[in-house]
């Protein structure tokens, strides 16, 4: 069990970045759905903001991928 963790190689940081952006995107999605439910009239604006913010949140993963050796 002990040597197993030492043998973890590869892109751990990409996994961590993906985890972070997944949490970020899911929070954005949750709040966007909530906001649309609260104010259906603003659905269009909320969708735009949500798409932009989700793109920014997931962008971190790509930086992590390209920083891989």
């Amino acid at each position: 069990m002990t040597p197993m963790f030492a043998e973890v190689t590869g892109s751990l940081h990409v996994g961590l970045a993906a985890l972070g952006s997944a949490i970020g995107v899911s929070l954005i999605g949750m709040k966007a759905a909530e906001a649309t439910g609260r104010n259906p009239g603003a659905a269009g604006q909320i969708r735009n903001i949500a798409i932009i913010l989700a793109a920014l949140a997931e962008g971190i993963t790509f930086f992590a991928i390209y920083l891989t050796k």
Partner: protein
Amino acid sequence: MRFIKVILIWLALAIVPVAGWCGESASGEASEHGLPSKAVIVFNLGPLAITNSMVVTMLVTLGIVVFAQLATRKVQSVPSGLQNFAEWMVESLYGFLGEILGDKLVKKTFWFFATIFLFILFTNWFGLIPGIGTVGWNALMSDGSHEFHPWLRGGNADLNMTSALAILFFFMWVVWAVQANGPVGFFKHIFAPGSDSTGVMKWFMVAIFLFVGVLETLSILFRPVSLSFRLFGNIFAGENVLEAMMNIVPWLGWLIPLPFYFLEILVGLVQALVFMLLTAVFTQLICSHDEGHSHGEGHAHDH
């Protein structure tokens, strides 16, 4: 009865790839290979090397141009057919961008945003057509080994293409920003303090906003990088996912990628939308003047 027919058709479709797989495994090893990160050169046009993703880019451009010509060949006041479809696309894009950019700015910049949206969208979807990335030739490498080279490769699965789009946007962004604010106003927009405080407080604010301006400049300079990486990463990852799913269970290679194809259709649309939305918002942020700015903010707080 119809259900049985559907099942029979599916079975018939299933036989084709299975037969293909049998042939492949008989001929040799079924090697698993992802999409190479570099596009391969198809042919040389003088000193200019034409890669397979450039071929796709040109094909998509040609398709859009031919469509636009066909749609506007006989323009009628009551549109129908192709003209109707083209008008619907352009009008809904214009309305959508008008909400973000405002009436004046959308008139000036619509050509750019609509073009990149349609181009990215159709390039992404074109890359999903079966045969692209899978039909090719076995090239003889310098070390004597053979390597599979596809004729065509998704245009946005090449970092050169997405960087070109992002750099073009960055150039246009600077031009529009200087046109809207003037050369001095452009730097004022980034560095100058917005509040009207006096005395010691004023100098304090000036120092803070200078520092904010440096951060702002850094984030502006990083925009083309993140724009191009985002688009390239999504499309490239999508192509790799499709290939991995095709190879995961060899005799189910015709079924497992199907849901991922639908995902990729969605991703292609969303990434085109994201590229257009982000570039439009960046433009709106720098070009909006005081009256537009306060109006936008008041609007956001009211709701």
